[in-house]
C-alpha cells in the first residue's frame, strides 16, 4: 500500500535574509517520482532542503519519514535522504578517489566510531557498477568530467541506501550527452528500486519522463500540481515562467532530451 513519506504543511522557509518559501504544502507518497519545475528563484531548491532538514523552517509543519523537523534534528533524517546537487567545484588535486567519495555516502549511516567493513565496500562497488563507473573507481575525483562527477554523486546517494532521493538540477551545466545519461540513470534507479524521487529543474527538457507528478512553483509558492500532461501545458508554463505562449511553444519545440 502506498503511504505518505513527505508531508509539508504551509511551510515558510528562509534562505539567508529572505523568505524563499512563502507557505508551501506538498504530500509525497512512497515510490512517487515528482518533478518540481519553475523559474530560477521560485523556491525549488528551498523546497528540497526542507525535505532533508537543511532549510530553516520559519513556520508551518514538515513531516518526513516519521520525523517532525525542528532546527537541529535533521542529522538523523538526512541519513535516510540522498541528495544530489548541481556539479560541485572540486579541487582537482583533492586527495580523494572516486571509490572513497561513494563510500562517503555511507559515513552517516555507519555512525560514530564505525569503520567501513566488507559489506560496505561491496555495496559501494555494486552502485559503482550500476552507474557505470567501475573503470574510474581508483581515479582522483577532481579529474573526472562533469557528467562523470554527477554519476559518482548518484552512486554516493545510492550507497547511502536512502528512502528518499532528492535531485537538485543534477544536469545543469552538463553537455547534451551527459544530460541524457544522467536522466536515464535517474530513471533506471527509480524504476529498479521504486525509490521515492523528487527532481528539481528549471529546464523542462531535463525532466525525466519517469516523472508521474509535476509541481509547478513560482515566487516561493506552489503554483499548481498534477500529472505532467495536465500541468506542462504551454499556457501554464507561459504563466509560471512569465513569457508569452509563442515563446514557450518555440522553446519546447527545440529540445526534448529523454
Amino acid at each position: 500500500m502506498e503511504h505518505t513519506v513527505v508531508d509539508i504543511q504551509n511551510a515558510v522557509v528562509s534562505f539567508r535574509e529572505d523568505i524563499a518559501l512563502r507557505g508551501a504544502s506538498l504530500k509525497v507518497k512512497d515510490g512517487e517520482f515528482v518533478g518540481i519545475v519553475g523559474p530560477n528563484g521560485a523556491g525549488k531548491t528551498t523546497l528540497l532542503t526542507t525535505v532533508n532538514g537543511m532549510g530553516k523552517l520559519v513556520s508551518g509543519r514538515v513531516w518526513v519519514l516519521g520525523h517532525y523537523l525542528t532546527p537541529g534534528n535533521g542529522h538523523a533524517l538526512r541519513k535516510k535522504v540522498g541528495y544530489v546537487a548541481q556539479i560541485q567545484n572540486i579541487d582537482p588535486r583533492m586527495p580523494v578517489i572516486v571509490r572513497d567519495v561513494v563510500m562517503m555516502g555511507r559515513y552517516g549511516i555507519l555512525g560514530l566510531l564505525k569503520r567501513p567493513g566488507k559489506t560496505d565496500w561491496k555495496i559501494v562497488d555494486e552502485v559503482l557498477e550500476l552507474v557505470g563507473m567501475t573503470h574510474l573507481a581508483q581515479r582522483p575525483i577532481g579529474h573526472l568530467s562533469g557528467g562523470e562527477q554527477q554519476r559518482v554523486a548518484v552512486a554516493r546517494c545510492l550507497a547511502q541506501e536512502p528512502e528518499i532521493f532528492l535531485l537538485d538540477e543534477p544536469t545543469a551545466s552538463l553537455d547534451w550527452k551527459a544530460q541524457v545519461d544522467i536522466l536515464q540513470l535517474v530513471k533506471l534507479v527509480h524504476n529498479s528500486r521504486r525509490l521515492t524521487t523528487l527532481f528539481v529543474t528549471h529546464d523542462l527538457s531535463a525532466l525525466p519522463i519517469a516523472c508521474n507528478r509535476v509541481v509547478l512553483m513560482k515566487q516561493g509558492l506552489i503554483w499548481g500540481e498534477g500529472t505532467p500532461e495536465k500541468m506542462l501545458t504551454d499556457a501554464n508554463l507561459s504563466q509560471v515562467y512569465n513569457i508569452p505562449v509563442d515563446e514557450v511553444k518555440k522553446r519546447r519545440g527545440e529540445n526534448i532530451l529523454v
Partner: protein
Amino acid sequence: MLEQTLGLSIFGYQFMQNAILTALLGGIACSVIGVFVVLLHMPFIGVCMSHAAFAGALLGVWLGFEPLIGAFALSLITAAIIGPLADRGELNPETSVGIIFSLMLGIAFLIMGLMPTSQSAAWDLLWGSILTNTREDIIFLAIVATLIIGLVIIFYKEITVTIFNRNIALSVGIPATFILYGILFLTGATITTTIRPIGGLLIFSLILNPAAAAYQLTYSMKQMFLLSAVFGVLSGWVGLLVSYLFNIPSGATIVVTSSIVFGLAVLFSPKKKVKSWQAQPLPESKHG
C-alpha cells in the same frame, strides 16, 4: 665509523635527546594538522595563533598572572571562534583567521604601549627553542601528539568528508558544522600548545611544508596524513643532525630542510607528469 661517532655523540647530550624527541612528537602533531591547514586553505592560522598566544602572554605579564596561562587562554578562545566567526560572516575560514590575527596584533601592541616594564617574558614564550626543552615539555608534547592522532583516527570518516565537501557531509547526515569547528579548534589548539617547545619560527614551516609536500605526491588522504607526518619528523631529525654537525642554528636549519623536502616533492610530483600512454598523439580522425 663516521655514523657511529655521530650517533654516539649526538645522543650523548640530554638537550639533544630532548630535541630529537621534540622533533618526533612536534613533527607528528604539526604535520598532521598541516593536512587540515593545506586542504582547508588557511596557511596563516599559524601566524594568527602565535600572535594570540603573544597577546595572551602580554596580558598575563601586564595584569600579573602567569604569562603561559594567558597565552593558552587567549589562543584557545581564538581557536574556538575562527569557525563560528567565518560562518556568521559568511567568510571563508582564512578571512576569519586574518581578522582575528589583526585583532590580536592590535591587542598585543595596545598592551605593550600601556605596559612600561619589560616584555621579554612574553617574547620568550613566543620564540621558544627546540634545544631548551625539559623532560616535562616532552611529556606534554607526547600527550598533545597522542591526543591529535587519537582524535583524527576516531573521527577519521567525519573529518575527511567534512574537508572534502561540507555540504556533502551535511547531506549524508554528518554534523559537519560541529566537525569543522572541531577541526579548526584542534588546529589552533595544537599550534598553541606546541609553539613554545618547538619555537615560533619553526612551527610555521612544520605545519605547512610537510603537508604541502605530501599533497604533491598522493591522491589518498590517508597517505597524505602519513607522508606528512614522515616528512615532518624527517625534516626535524635531518635538520638537527645538520645543525649539530656544522654548528649552525637548529631551528633555522630545520626550516630550510623542510623547505628542501617540499621543493623535492614539487620537483618529482607525479601529478605534474603526463601519463605515458596519454602522451601519444591520437591517430588522425576520419571526418569530412
